[in-house]
């Protein structure tokens, strides 16, 4: 049974344009006018978001800052209305957006239970009936009859969550409210949410805490730039998000980067001819495509390989083999990195490409969660593949010097 339907929901905000500087044409009259009546830029916090949640489902919503998570929460909790589209709710919804909402510092904890409880939508009789439970849950002792302005921040949060935890919603929205309090209290909060979940309540959990999301949810939605990027089982979605975060955080934020004249448009991998699969120890090519809006001289293109956890494994860069600069003419183009034997062990890896100026200025990062899947090839144990041959020792006690494959025995490159 459907509990909640979100259909083509978009939300637009208006951001005021910066007030014109002195050099702006039009002079003082225009500037004065723009002060009185500033012009605005449309900003779409959500774009055509649609999903449904079944009764009793626990859905996590994750994504980077500015992805639209909070906007979604505000729409679901009716704090503001969508610009287009509609949301249908089939049950009473309570939102745990910020604990301690509606607390008044001058009132005692007990008085605030009534105030905050009724703001959160509880009936007075309901609060009276649950008052003892709420006070016990908060566990703040005699402070319940002291004004909340004397509370420590921990006590404030405990009381706030205690009230919210005793709401009786059919749908519960939880937003980061659990990232507070000591560990024992946090555990109490999770237990409460788990109890609500097993009681058949529908839960929407918006958080940056991926571990809790994975633990608590049946399904996870990944938001990116106001849209749903992924919607599926927690392990898959969380892993994809970790990959993107690891890549983005380490190599510069790829969301909303400024236009510096060039951008990476894609990364493609290729194995041996006649074998589409990429295998450990086999030849491996990677192509980085770019688009330059104007000619740019002396750049460096890099390809980074990382684990899901974000550990850097290897980097290929255009200056590593020869220190020659790379001049990009305007238009689309690409570079290929060719590797004789791929050192990565079978598994999935994140790949990030970026373009820098020679002085290190980042021009563009491409970290669209591109995954490199490496299949089994040359047998190899350990962390990485190391090409080698072996032979019987020819001299009785000494070891022969090593050589490049193309080297003649006297040390000269052929």
């Amino acid at each position: 049974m459907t509990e909640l339907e979100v259909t083509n929901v978009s939300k637009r905000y208006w951001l005021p344009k910066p007030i014109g500087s002195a050099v702006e044409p039009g002079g003082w009259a225009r500037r004065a006018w723009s002060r009185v009546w500033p012009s605005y830029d449309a900003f779409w916090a959500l774009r055509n978001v649609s999903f449904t949640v079944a009764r009793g489902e626990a859905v996590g919503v994750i994504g980077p800052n500015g992805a639209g998570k909070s906007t979604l929460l505000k729409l679901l909790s009716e704090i503001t209305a969508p610009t287009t589209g509609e949301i249908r709710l089939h049950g009473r919804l309570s939102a745990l957006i910020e604990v301690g909402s509606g607390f008044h510092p001058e009132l005692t904890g007990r008085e605030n239970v009534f105030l905050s409880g009724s703001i959160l939508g509880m009936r007075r009789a309901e609060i009276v009936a649950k008052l003892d439970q709420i006070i016990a849950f908060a566990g703040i002792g005699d402070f319940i009859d002291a004004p909340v302005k004397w509370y420590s921040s921990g006590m404030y949060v405990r009381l706030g969550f205690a009230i919210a935890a005793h709401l009786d919603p059919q749908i519960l929205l939880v937003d980061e409210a659990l990232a507070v309090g000591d560990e024992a209290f946090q555990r109490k909060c999770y237990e409460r949410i788990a109890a609500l979940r097993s009681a058949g309540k529908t839960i929407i959990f918006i958080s940056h805490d991926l571990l809790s999301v994975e633990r608590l949810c049946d399904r996870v939605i990944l938001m990116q730039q106001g849209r749903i990027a992924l919607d599926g089982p927690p392990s898959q979605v969380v892993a994809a998000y970790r990959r993107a975060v690891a890549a983005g955080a380490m190599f510069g934020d790829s969301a909303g980067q400024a236009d510096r004249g060039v951008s990476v448009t894609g990364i493609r991998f290729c194995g041996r001819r006649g074998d589409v699969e990429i295998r450990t120890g086999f030849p491996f090519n990677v192509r980085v495509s770019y688009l330059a809006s104007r000619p740019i001289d002396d750049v460096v293109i890099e390809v980074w390989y990382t684990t899901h956890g974000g550990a850097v494994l290897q980097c290929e860069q255009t200056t590593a083999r020869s220190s020659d600069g790379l001049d990009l003419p305007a238009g689309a183009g690409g570079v290929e990195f060719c590797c004789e034997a791929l050192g990565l062990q079978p598994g999935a890896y994140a790949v990030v490409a970026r373009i820098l100026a020679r002085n290190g200025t980042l021009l563009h990062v491409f970290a669209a969660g591109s995954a490199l899947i490496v299949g089994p090839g040359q047998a190899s144990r350990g962390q990485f593949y190391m090409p080698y041959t072996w032979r019987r020792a020819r001299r009785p006690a000494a070891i022969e010097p090593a050589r490049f494959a193309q080297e003649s025995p006297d040390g000269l490159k052929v």
Partner: protein
Amino acid sequence: MHPSAGVSVRVLAPPTWRSAATWSQVARLGHYRDLLSTLSRHRINVRYKQSKLGALWAVLQPFTMMLVFTAVFARLVHVPSEGVPYALFAYAGLLPWTCFSSAVSNSTNSLVGHAQLVTKVFFPREILPLSYVIAAGVDLAIGAAVLVGLAIYYSVPLTAELWFVVPIVAVLGGYALACGLVLSAVQVRFRDVGVALPIALQLLMFASPVLYPLRVVPAQWRTLYLLNPLAGLIDGFRRSVLGMPVDGQALLVGTAVTMVALPLAYVAFKYADVTVADVI
């Protein structure tokens, strides 16, 4: 558990005038009546929480104004007061006026003043201005104690006209709410409202029969003057408590204007209300 919740489907959609003007909005308010009573009580509790004189301030405000205006208008310029002592006359006008003015100025700031709440929790927002209007009504009741004292002191006769007080106060509250709803919603976008309000209220006080009787208004201005509902309501309040026959025409005009203004204000408020959190 809310009685109607859980059964019905709630549709959250972009604001339209049609959806703002439905009875379900008012019905929804009914589900939140406990919040309304808690908040109204809270207004009164908190206002005087750290003051020594407490609720006495509800009396002192109109009372000191009465003393000042009596000194000026009765001693210096001799304003007519329909045969009753000016102090009594002025207090009977200042009491409903201070109720109206504090209701409007508090409710105008109610949304902006609760920005923290408005952007964090959903509840019918009209509860905020409404709770201030109710709190002002309680102040009026407290201030009425002094009026009773003055009436006994000046031995004012008790007449059946006194019953008019009940509907007059109700309509006065309705008009204050209409003003508060519109101004609070506009204040969210244009903070100029909050700055202009004290001046506007000053002007309005002199444009209403607070310190002078309605009867002194020249006949050719009377119709225009009565379009301000406060004219009929404040004059009516004073006449009924002082045992004088009320001016039926003035009261009727004031009530009619309020009955048109309040629903319009409510619908406009509900229309703006759904996106108030975006701009506050």
